[in-house]
């Protein structure tokens, strides 16, 4: 068990270290682009920072956290040692190498292409190699998750895979499908261009391949939060999971509907027809379903907990929930942010409304709220919940944990709500400095300052988060062993193979991807877009 704990902690510390670093950069960026920092920082500094911030948050924090949490679930939910832990450590170090290469190229100014690195802007090749190594490390993780589940099923024929592991493997399977797009873009287009092997690049193709990854990746980030909703929160609240079956269905729905929807990031792009965009918009409406189903199931699970604690009446159970426990508090705060962020997502999906908000601060607000808000707050809650298990020590007091969560929630709301408003006014994104002398832009200034204040609160919360974990390592309170995973009201005895494995769903994903992305990609193979010249950021 020792090795597994070290493995998990190693991944988590890399993730949270990158997270803290990125928060500092984020606060600086907000200062520079506000009226308060109008003459500070050059575009070179700013875009270098945005690249580092994006790469750290979107690729490092997430991938390493998910890998670490996955190893944790594989060991604790299945109650057996991790198969191939040497491979796990090998993958970890490969990922570290990738992060170092990427950060060095960014820091040297040779990779200011932002985390989306849209060609023809092309960075130094080590930046891309760094990203490839991180993705490759995650592929090793996927393989280990599949092997672990398979080995358990062989030893436990006919029994349902514990929900936490089922969901983790669903995420791994989805990630394997997700990375195909960006891997193809990097290996066949961007890296050859970066190396100077080709001087031009098919931008229609690269943008389409990246969109394949760009939406599904956010569900890769989100599923661990939902794993916490379904398998950790009901236990933490003292209740039961309302429906195990619904949990399985939710993760399956994410697997099939996260992938064939990437084109909704290209709704304003010229290179695809209305019809192909519409198909993916229709499928996008369906990816809202698992979240809506989850809200019901988890609320019901919380209701069970509340009523067990004496709650009466229609809403009385809400007050009796143990809000003092960080996991329970986090769920409540996450759900509020999910409401706002999800609503924004529906707006983005409707292309008529998307035309009002595309590439404005609304988009920045949306993904900071939904990912930085609902998802990351659950990452905090998960860390607080499992750290005692990993370190053998318990929190001396839960008050700093709750304070940190409240600060994160408050900061996120204060930062992103003004951004939504500014986006509707037309404030556009990825800008290092605004001309506050222009009357239209001057009116935005006060709101930009408000959201900067939100950013400062977030930075404070981030520092407090890391501090809470560090002090836990040195805590004098020993951890008491207690059950972690929730029981369902009706724990399943047998489930159909469809809810216990992914054979059927992989076939459906393949068919969906062929129908949704087949022609959009094939059109560039049949008739390549006129190629654009590679612009090297050296």
């Amino acid at each position: 068990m020792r090795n597994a704990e070290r493995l998990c902690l190693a991944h988590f510390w890399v993730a949270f270290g990158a997270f803290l670093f990125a928060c500092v950069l984020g606060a600086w960026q907000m200062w520079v682009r506000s009226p308060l920092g109008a003459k500070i920082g050059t575009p070179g500094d700013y875009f270098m920072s945005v690249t580092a911030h994006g790469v750290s948050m979107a690729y490092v924090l997430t991938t390493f956290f998910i890998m670490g949490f996955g190893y944790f679930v594989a060991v604790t939910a299945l109650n057996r040692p991790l198969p191939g832990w040497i491979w796990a450590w090998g993958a970890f170090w490969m990922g570290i190498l990738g992060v170092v290469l990427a950060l060095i190229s960014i820091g040297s100014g040779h990779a200011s292409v932002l985390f989306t690195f849209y060609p023809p802007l092309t960075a130094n090749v080590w930046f891309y190699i760094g990203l490839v190594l991180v993705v490759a490390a995650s592929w090793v993780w996927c393989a280990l998750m599949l092997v672990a589940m398979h080995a358990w099923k062989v030893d436990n024929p006919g029994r349902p895979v514990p929900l936490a592991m089922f969901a983790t493997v669903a995420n791994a399977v989805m990630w394997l499908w997700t990375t195909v797009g960006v891997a193809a873009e990097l290996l066949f287009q961007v890296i050859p261009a970066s190396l100077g092997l080709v001087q031009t690049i098919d931008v229609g193709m690269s943008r389409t391949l990246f969109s394949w990854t760009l939406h599904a990746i956010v569900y890769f980030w989100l599923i661990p939060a939902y794993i916490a909703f379904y398998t950790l929160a009901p236990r933490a609240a003292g209740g039961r999971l309302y429906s195990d079956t619904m949990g399985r269905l939710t993760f399956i729905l994410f697997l099939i509907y996260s992938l064939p929807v990437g084109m909704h990031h290209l709704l304003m792009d010229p290179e695809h027809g209305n019809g192909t965009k519409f198909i993916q918009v229709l499928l996008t409406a369906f990816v809202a379903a698992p979240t809506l189903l989850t809200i019901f199931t988890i609320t019901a699970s919380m209701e069970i907990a509340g009523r067990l604690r004496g709650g009466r009446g229609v809403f009385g159970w809400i007050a009796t929930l143990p809000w003092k426990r960080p996991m329970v508090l986090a769920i409540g705060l996450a759900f509020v942010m999910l409401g706002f962020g999800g609503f924004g997502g529906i707006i983005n999906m409707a292309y008529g409304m998307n035309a009002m908000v595309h590439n404005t601060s609304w988009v920045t607000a949306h993904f900071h709220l939904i990912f930085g808000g609902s998802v990351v707050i659950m990452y905090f809650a998960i860390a607080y919940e499992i750290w005692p298990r990993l370190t053998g020590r318990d929190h001396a007091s839960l008050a700093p944990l709750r304070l940190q969560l409240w600060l994160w929630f408050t900061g996120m709301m204060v930062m992103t709500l003004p951004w939504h408003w500014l986006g509707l006014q037309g404030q556009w994104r990825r800008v290092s400095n605004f001309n506050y002398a222009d009357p239209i832009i001057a009116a935005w200034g006060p709101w930009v300052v408000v959201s900067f204040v939100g950013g400062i609160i977030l930075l404070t919360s981030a520092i407090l988060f890391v501090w809470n974990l560090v002090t836990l390592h040195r805590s004098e309170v020993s951890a008491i062993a207690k059950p972690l995973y929730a029981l369902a009201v009706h724990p399943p005895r047998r489930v159909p193979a469809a809810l216990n494995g992914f054979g059927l769903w992989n076939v459906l994903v393949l068919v969906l991807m062929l129908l949704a992305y087949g022609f959009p990609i094939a059109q560039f193979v049949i008739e390549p877009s006129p190629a654009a010249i590679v612009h090297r950021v050296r």
Partner: protein
Amino acid sequence: MTEQRPQQSDPHVLDQPWRIWSTIAVMGIVLVGILLGVIVIPVVQGRSAGIDAFTAICRALGILPGSPAVPQFTDRTPPTPVSQVVWTPDVLQILARADVAKGKAKVQEVCIACHGENGVSVATEYPHLAGQSGAAIYKQLHDYRTGSRVNPQMTDIAKALDEAVTADVAAYYAGQPQRNLNPVTLAVSPPAIVQLVELGDPRRNIPPCASCHRAGAGGPIEAPVLAEQRDEYLIQQLKLYASGQRRNDVYGRMRLIASRLTDEEIKGLAAYYRAGFR
């Protein structure tokens, strides 16, 4: 002999309805999407705009340009004659594979008289070429050759060089080391000039000079390196752009920017770059 009937909890029995219904549901959803998006919506939209169904569907798929709901504008503007450089993959490959030795030989034969052996020019009216961007030199020679840029001496010289030699010469100068850059000798630049270089001027809609002219900024590939260029030459060229006499900048960006700079700013920028700031 008793018949073996499948048990209710037999996985295969549990499974079948899942397989069937989930496939029906998912395929149904996608097929509805295809039907609506590729057929119904474009055809109905096309009718209101007088576009036939087949064209509307092709536009919805992206096989034909345009929207299924609006008649497509067809351009009938006559093409303009080729007068400027085209960065085709062939040209870019020629530049990437140029022969520096041949370039050096040509330089010593022709260019050295004005531009100096090490690319450090002999008089103020000739620009330094050492460490200049290869694409920039190639473009200017090409433009001299075709007449997009006019200079009494350079026009004839450029006409005598063919494309391959032009690329070789460009590659030779590009490979010359950047001139000495001793930070101690760099003059202090007025803040207004530094701001123009780093942040541009939003009020006049001028982007920062550095966004194109700093090496590795990822701007236009033909943007020349300005660091340590002769300030008299820079002032002269900016004035030629401002008056429109020099017009080989693609889409008139330099003409527009230069026409909005004051004389003092032009002098200040020239001094800034001459001092070696990058």
